[in-house]
C-alpha cells in the first residue's frame, strides 16, 4: 500500500507540477490551482483491450487535492490541511479506506512545494532527464520504487509546459497512460471540494 500511495502521489505531483515546473525553466509562474478531467488506460500483456478509467482532479495551492475516479470503480482521495483520506465505493456506498499508510504521501507532499516553485530537478525519488523539448523522463532512484515503476514519461502539450499526458511503465509490456483534458488553471476552488466526499 505504501508504494501504491507513492505512485498515486507521484502521479499527482507530476501532474500539478508539470506545467509550473516546465514553465519555470523559462519564466517562473506560480501555479495557484488546477482542475482537469483525465482518462486512464491500463495496458498489460494479457489484455487485448486496455482497462479504461475516467475521473477528475482538483489541486489548490499549497497542499489541497481531490483526485477522483468516476469509473470503473468510484474512488476519492482527499488531502487538505495535512489530513489525507481515501474513500472507495463498496457495496454501492463510499467507504473510507483506513488501511492506507500516509508515510509515503507525506514524503511526496514535502516535494510538491519544490515543484510548484519551479525547482524541477530537485527530486528525491526520481532522476530527471529531458530527452526532447516535450518529454520529461523520470527514473526511480531507489530499488524499492524501481521494483514497482521502471520509469515515468511526462509529455508536454506545448512549450508553455502544459501537460498532455503521463505514462507510467511498470515493465516492458505493462504501463498506465493518462491523458488530461478540460484543464482549468488558477481558478479559486471551494474548500469543500477537498473535504467532502
Amino acid at each position: 500500500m505504501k508504494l501504491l500511495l507513492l505512485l498515486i502521489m507521484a502521479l499527482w505531483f507530476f501532474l500539478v507540477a508539470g506545467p509550473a515546473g516546465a514553465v519555470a525553466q523559462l519564466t517562473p509562474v506560480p501555479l495557484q490551482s488546477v482542475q482537469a478531467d483525465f482518462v486512464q488506460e491500463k495496458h498489460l500483456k494479457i489484455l487485448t483491450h486496455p482497462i479504461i478509467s475516467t475521473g477528475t482532479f482538483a489541486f489548490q495551492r499549497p497542499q489541497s487535492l481531490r483526485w477522483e475516479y468516476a469509473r470503473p470503480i468510484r474512488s476519492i482521495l482527499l488531502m487538505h490541511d495535512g489530513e489525507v483520506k481515501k474513500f472507495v465505493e463498496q457495496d454501492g456506498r463510499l467507504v473510507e479506506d483506513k488501511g492506507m499508510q500516509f508515510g509515503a504521501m507525506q514524503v511526496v507532499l514535502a516535494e510538491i512545494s519544490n515543484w510548484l516553485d519551479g525547482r524541477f530537478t530537485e527530486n528525491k525519488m526520481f532522476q530527471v532527464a529531458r530527452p526532447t523539448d516535450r518529454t520529461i523522463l523520470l527514473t526511480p532512484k531507489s530499488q524499492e520504487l524501481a521494483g514497482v515503476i521502471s520509469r515515468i514519461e511526462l509529455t508536454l502539450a506545448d512549450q508553455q509546459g502544459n501537460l498532455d499526458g503521463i505514462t507510467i511503465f511498470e515493465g516492458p509490456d505493462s504501463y498506465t497512460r493518462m491523458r488530461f483534458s478540460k484543464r482549468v488553471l488558477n481558478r479559486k476552488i471551494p474548500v469543500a471540494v477537498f473535504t467532502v466526499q
Partner: protein
Amino acid sequence: MKNVPVILLVLLFFLSGCAAEKRMQLPGLIRTIDDGQQKIACADIFPQGKWQFVHSIEFTMKDGAGPPVIGVTTIDGSTIGCALVTVEGLTLFEAVYRGKESVEIRRAIPPFDKPGFARGLIGDIRAIFQPPSGTVLTGQSADAAPVCRYKDVRGGVVDVERTADDCWQINGYSAELLQRSIIGRSCRKKGSGNIPEYLELKTYGRNGYTLKMTLIRADNVP
C-alpha cells in the same frame, strides 16, 4: 430460575454461531439419468473460445474486507491470464496459467507474493470459468433444479446447477463437505457465453473468504 432466559440466550448465541460455521454436506441427487442435453447445457455456462473479462472485486474475510480492486481474466482454451490492478492502475499481481499446474508469475507485489496465493487465485478462476474435470452424472436437486455432478479421481465433486433466473450456481465439495460455492446472477447472453453481471464466490473453513465480482466488461476476443 431467574437466570434461565439469560442462559438460553447465551446457548442460542453459541448455537447460532455453530450453525453459521456448519458447512453444507454433499446433497443427494434425485432422478439421476444420463441426459446428454443437460450435460451440454451445463458445459455451456463456461465461456468457450477466447475471452477477456474485467471485474470489480471486493474481498472479504472473517476479520475484515479489503478495498476493491480491478480483476482481469483472459481465457484462451486451457490458458488463463489473470491480473489484479488497483483503482489507480498499479498492477499488484499478474500471472499466466497454461494448464498442468504450470503458473508463470509475471508480477507479485507484497502481500500478493505469498506462497499459495497464485495457486489459490488460479484455482478460483478455473472454478468460475473452466468446466470441472471428471465424469459427469446428471440429475435433479431436492428442489427439482437440473444438476450436473462432476466427480474427479481424487474424490472431489462439483455440482453445476442452472438456477431459476437462467443463471447458474457451482458448488465444489471435498470429503463430501462444501469447500467453495459460486453464484452467478443477472446472466446475459453474449457470443457463446452466458455471462453473469455479478458473481459471488465463497470458500469455507477456517480461512474462508468471499469474493464479490461485478462485471465491468466482457469481450469475446476474435
